[in-house]
Each structure stands twice: as C-alpha cells, then as structure tokens.
C-alpha cells in the first residue's frame, strides 16, 4: 500500500476550488443577467468580462509572485501610471518608437521593482511599508512631472487593447500567455522554486544555500514589470498615458484580494498563478453582473466587500487540512500493516499542517 494514496484522498486542489467558485459565480451571474433580459454568454458580454480581466490580471500575476515570496506590493497603481506615461510619451505617435517605448517603460518599472526588492531584502523593511513608501515616491514624481494625460500612442499599438479574436480580446490572450510563462517560471526555474522556498521559510532556505534575497528581488522586479505591462495595456486602450490611471483602478488592494481569493497564502510559500487568474475572473464576473443589473455604484462596493470576505471564507474553510480520522464516519477502511502507525498522518508531533499554518501565518 502506498502511503501517498493512503494519506491521499488528497484534498481538492486549492486552484480547483477557486475555479469551482468561479463557475458558481458565473452560474448565478448568468441567471441574474437573464432576469434583466440579457445574455450572459453573448460576445459583447464575454468581451466585457475578459477586457476587465486583462489589466487587473497583469497586476495580479505580479502580485502573486511577490506574495508567494511573503512580501507585498502596494506601489503597483503608481507604477502602472508611470509605465503608461513613459510609453505614451516615448512613442509620441510614432510606430517606429513602439519598441524603445516599451523597453523604456518596462525598464523603469524594473528599476522600481529592484528598489522595492532591495529595500525589502537588504534594509529589512516589511514589504507593506517599503512599497507603501515607494508608491508615495513614485506618486510624487508623477504629480511633479506630469500634468494630466500625456503622450500619444500610435494606432498600431492601440490595436493591442482594441482588437479581439472573436469575443476574446488580444489583451486577455496576452495576459493568459504571460500567466502561463509565470507558471512555468515558478515551476521550472530555480529562482521560481526558490521563491516558494523563501516564502515558506527564509531561515531554512538560507541554510539550504539559497541566496534568499535573489528570488524576492526578482519577484519584486517582475511584479513591477507586470504592473508596467498593465500600464502599457492601459496606454494602448487609452491612447495616451495617464498619471491617475493606476489609482483609478484601485489595483493595489484589488490585486491582493484577487491573489488571496485565488488561494495563495497571504504569508507566502503556497499558491498558484492560475488560482489568481480565477480570483481575477471572479471579480470581473461580479463587476459585469452588477453593471448589467445597474446596481447602485455604492451598493456595488458593499457587494464587493461582502463577496471578498465570503469567498475567502469558503476557501479557507475548505482548505483546513484535518488530521485524517482513524475512527468515525470519515475513517478510512482499516488497512493494518506493520508500518501503519509509523505512517499515520495522525502523528501528533507533526501537527496537521493546515492547523499549524492557520495559526502561524495569518
């Protein structure tokens, strides 16, 4: 008997739970949308949902990386704005300058991310404070340097934000493509693997020979770059750069909420990009349904607030890994073997992980 399966009946994968929740939200949404005589699955509606996923999706992918490394990034809205401005200004309406503009915008974002990462890892400032401060610094720069929207995005670049394949916007496909790349990065690169390790336990990672600062710095850089990609997408959709477009979207808290909704532990070490995409999709569907229902904008906020808490509550409730019962209705069929007790997950000195994780990392 293999213990893996014995201990198995592996609980539902967290990402799966997120997508089940998404399906439920979509089902309820479809019914609600139907009551006002609209079709939830019409191309225009699907497009609306997917479009609103794209920008938040980019930001949330980056935020996932940072949170996996047990940090946080509150500076993303300002980085988004900065990226849109640098890009639009550099392009100045010329197709030829698209590439340099994209590189300049992402380069600047990477530098901000590098600064965030260095402050967090070298100065030992909690990510919350470091990025809150960095956000203010970038905001100060934006306010001083830019007066309103600026720049001009050439039509070819605008096409990225404005074109779709059927009802699927290119921007959403790009976002999902990048999500796939990040999933690959996390699973199949050393830095990605080490990011999980550092987020899980810095000390153990350090003793295991991981340069613990590196994955965290990389995560912060990638997070800022993804915020920069979101800014590029916004520049493409707006046709100009805007110093307020990042804050308008409330991407800081919303992206964190989406990441947690997607099953990533707020304290790091466990999570997945696909869960985050699921979390982003839940928000997008929710917003779409409320808009179609023409809900009072203030009530929308109330619903959002309630849904965020309840959705995470359902998820945390599900994910509490219990010690496997030996007796009672849930008990597995008796399978005595000479080593059975050794393998028993009921082992007390390895307190059930969910139990431990619950209390140790909120």
């Amino acid at each position, binding site marked *: 008997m293999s213990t893996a399966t014995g201990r198995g009946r592996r609980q539902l994968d967290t990402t799966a739970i997120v997508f089940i929740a998404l399906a439920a939200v979509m089902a309820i949404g479809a019914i609600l949308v139907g009551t006002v005589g609209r079709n939830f699955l019409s191309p225009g509606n699907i497009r609306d949902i997917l479009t609103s996923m794209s920008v938040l999706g980019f930001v949330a992918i980056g935020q996932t990386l940072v949170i996996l490394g047990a940090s946080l990034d509150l500076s993303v809205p300002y980085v988004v704005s900065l990226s849109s401005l640098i890009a639009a200004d550099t392009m100045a309406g010329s197709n030829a300058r698209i590439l340099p503009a994209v590189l300049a915008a992402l380069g600047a974002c990477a530098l901000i991310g590098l600064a965030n990462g260095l402050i967090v890892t070298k100065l030992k400032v909690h990510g919350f404070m470091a990025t809150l401060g960095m956000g203010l610094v970038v905001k100060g720069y934006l306010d001083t340097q830019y007066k309103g929207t600026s720049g001009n995005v050439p039509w070819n670049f605008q096409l990225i934000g404005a074109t779709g394949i059927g009802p699927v916007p290119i921007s959403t496909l790009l976002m999902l493509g990048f999500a796939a790349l990040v999933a690959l990065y996390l699973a199949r690169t*050393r830095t990605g*693997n080490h990011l999980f*390790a550092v987020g899980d336990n810095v000390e*153990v990672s350090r*003793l*295991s020979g991981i340069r613990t600062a590196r994955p965290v710095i990389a995560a912060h850089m990638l997070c800022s770059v993804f915020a920069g990609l979101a800014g590029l997408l916004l520049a493409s959709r707006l046709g100009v750069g805007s110093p307020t477009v990042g804050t308008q979207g409330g991407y800081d808290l919303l992206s964190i909420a989406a990441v947690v909704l997607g099953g990533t532990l707020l304290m790091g070490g466990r999570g997945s990009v696909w869960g985050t995409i699921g979390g982003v999709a839940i928000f997008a569907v929710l917003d779409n349904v409320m808009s179609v229902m023409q809900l009072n904008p203030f009530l929308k906020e109330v619903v959002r607030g309630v849904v965020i808490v309840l959705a995470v509550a359902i998820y945390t409730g599900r994910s509490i890994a219990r010690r496997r019962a030996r*007796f009672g209705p849930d008990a597995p069929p008796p399978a005595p073997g000479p080593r059975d007790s050794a393998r028993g*997950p009921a082992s007390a*000195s390895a307190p059930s992980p969910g139990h*431990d994780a619950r209390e140790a990392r909120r």
Partner: protein
Amino acid sequence: MTTNIFDAPVPDTSSSTAPVLRATDLSKEFFGVRVLHGVSIELYPGRVHGLVGENGAGKSTLMKILAGVYQRDGGTVEFNGEPVSFSHPVQAMDAGLATVFQEFNLLPERTVAQNVFIGREPRRGGLVDQKGMVTRTAALLKDLGIDFIDPAARVSRLSVAEQQIVEITKALSHDAKVISMDEPTAALAGHEVELLYAIIRRLAARGVAILYVSHRLREIFDLCDEITVLKDGAFVSHTPAAELDTAELVRLMVGRSISTYFPSALEGTVPGDTRLQIRGGGNDWIDGIDLQLRAGHITGLAGLQGAGRTELAEAIFGAAPFTRGTLAIDGREARITSIRAAVRSGIALITEDRKAQGLALGQSVLNNALLAVRSVFSRRFAAAAAALPGVLNTLELSSRGTDQEVQFLSGGNQQKVVLAKWLLTKPRIVVLDEPTRGIDVGAKVAVYQLIRELARDGVAILLISSELPEVIGMADTILAMHDGRIVAQLPAGSSEQDVLAAAVAAPIGGTP
C-alpha cells in the same frame, strides 16, 4: 551529482585508515563567553562516533562549526586531509559533510523531492527538472529501504519520522562522506528508532563517517563505535564504546555519578481517590478509551509514535475533545469540550512541542509563566504572580531575570518555564507529553523530581513518553497504546520488553 553512495566502492573500514575528518583544538566564543575550547575530534569512514554531554557542553556548537553554520575562532579542521574552512552550510554539504539538525530544516509547503534538492535543483534544457527530482529522490529513498514516502508529497503531510528520513535523504543526495546527526531520535518512537538504526548502520557499512549526538545513552551504546564526551565546552574523554557502561558515561558527562537516575516515590505519597475517569472515550483518532487517573498516582503511557498518545492527551485536555464515552472528574460527570474547560477543571497539559504550543518565545519568562493563570483564572492572578518567584526558585530556573525573553533560554530552562506556567494554575490532573524531550540530564532529573513532588501533593499524573525507561522508572501503572486504543495495562516495574511487546505487537486488550 547524486551518485548514490551505495554504488560507491566499499572502503576499508578498519581503524587504521586515515580519518576523513579531523578537527583539532577548536574554540569558539559568543559575546566574550567561551563555549568551546580546545576540543578535538576525529571521524573515520564507516564508524559511528557518539558525541555526548549535557546541554551547554558544546555539542551543538561543535556540530555547527563543522557544518559551516558558525565560524570557529581557533583550531583547524581537516577534511580528507585538506584543511577546510566552511563559511556556509552549503559549502560543507557540497564538500560531503552533511548535517541533520535537530530543528527540522525542511520546508513544509514544498514536496519531499523539492526539499531534497533545494538550492541545487537539477535542470534539463535550462529548466528545473521536476520529474527528474522525483525519480532521483525515489531512488535515494529506495536505497534507504524506504518505500512508503511519496517523493511528490508535501512535507507538511509527513510524520516527524518521515521528515527525519527526508533530512537524511537530503544529506545522502549530497553524496556525503560525513553525516552528523543532532538528536535524530528525539522525535521518534521505538520502531522508528530501529529504522533509523538500520539506516545508520547501512550508511556506516558503505563507508560514511557518522557523528551521532544524542541524550539517549542507550542509543549511544547501541550504535556507536567510539564516544567523545564534552563538558562545559571542553573535551573530557574519547573512549571506545565497548570500554564504557552507562554509569561511567553519566559520570563523565556530569562529573559525578548519579546513583538513581529516576527518583523513587517521595515519602508521604499516598494513592488517593480517582481524579479522572474515562469510559469508552473516543473521537476521530482514538477509540474505546477506558482510563482512570488517581490522586498521587503516576500513570505511564507508552506507545509508538502515531499510536494516539498525543491524541489522548489532547482529548483529555479538550484540544481535540472526546466525542464519545463519558468522563468524570472527582466522580462527577464532566464535559471537557475546550482547553479552557479542561484548565478550569484543574487539568494541565505539558505539550510535547514546547516551541509550537508551549511558549511565546518572544515574550518574557514572567509573561509566559503567567499566561495560563491570567487566561483562565484571572481572579487568582495576583496570588499566582506573588507565588511565581517561589515556583521558579523551586524549579531552579536559570535566567537573567523574569523579564528575559524565553527564546534565549536553553531547552531545559524553557521546559521549566512551561512547568511553572502550569504549576501556577494549581492543577489536580497533570498530563505530561514527552516532558524530557531534548533537554539535558540535569533538567531531566529536575522534571522527574517535580513529578514525584506533584504525586506526593495528591496530583493525578499521566506521563506519556517514547523513552521506555522513563515510563518504567516513573510510573505506578503502565498503559500501552496501539492504533488509537489502549491495548494493555502493566504493573510498575515491568520490563522494557513486556511494554514494547504490548505497544507493538497485536493488541492484548482484545480490541480488534
């Protein structure tokens, strides 16, 4: 990179070969305090070298210097005849000097394979080869004779013993020539220890030099070819194991002989009324529990890891309450559905994992010691605060003061703080789960002494331990648990063989 050591040619293990590791005249200071001075040790291929000494003797410091965790202040280390100086544990690991620390160095959210290869994940085509990691880990485990650990399983879902094995696998994956182990059995039950023995002997047979640190003297004699004793940071002796016996070893360690390791019952100890009576108790993890704890009586509970001992303790303590059966305290039926209710009823639990459940490490001795009283008996708080100095004095706690953070205390002193916390609640029923795990001989004896005193004062005691001598030496009645049930009751003074047989073998008590 991960050439299996079992494929390597078996080297000559006779003592005439050169030592694979020779440390000479090592010294180390912390904040001006000498914690190690003039210590030398030699490790030979294929031989198990026991390192003993009380807590504070310098064993851990020595290990950590060898492992590259600490930098030595003086002395030399030669590895394979070359002078070496490791500035990071990974350097040591890569050179072939692996260490299995007492604190688990595993990441709970990562898989077994990911833990084994952490920091040097194999790559294929530039990408981390997750599948290869799993295959290679499976191969390493198989060579250890382990077929029940899934390399793709998350470490958080493994038992302590399994985690220990993962640690050793990790060391092996480095193709280690020397493996040092710090109290590897501290968290293991009897048959798991046997498994570890087998692994260690297998490693030794393959020419690996083992440095083995343990407080369990029996293991030292079971395993080791030679024994080095440290005391107060200094070298005491280096002797072939065969030339020593337990008494002599203890004398070397503490500098004097202990006539009786386990104190006998104190004068005035009278078994009294039944304090706690459980009939047919059970929940998801334990079943059919019939248990009676009497005032002034020490009930010992033996059983393997995973037999349900801790679950029983947690059920009594309300942490994972009984869902079946009846429970009576002082003859009156009671419902213990929460820890709070248990503490209110006069029950105390000294948990087996004092860092996880027993102490808030960043808080002071004072605040830790008063935590239970202030949480449950706020009215008795003033009295408890007044009684605290006396209690700490009785326990002979050694600290800078009551405002010192407990994280800076030794394991033994930390355990004393936990004991103080519960003594202050004036408990009538005390459950001790592995109360002497990871603490030195002196502190152990203090704990035994305290248990005797509690019994004399009419407290009912349930003593849970993996160390059979401890149960046998202390208990008035011995219970054995197996697979969630109490399967046997043995009288005081039963032999270790009897107890072990009861705990391991087919149930005696009749439950299927």
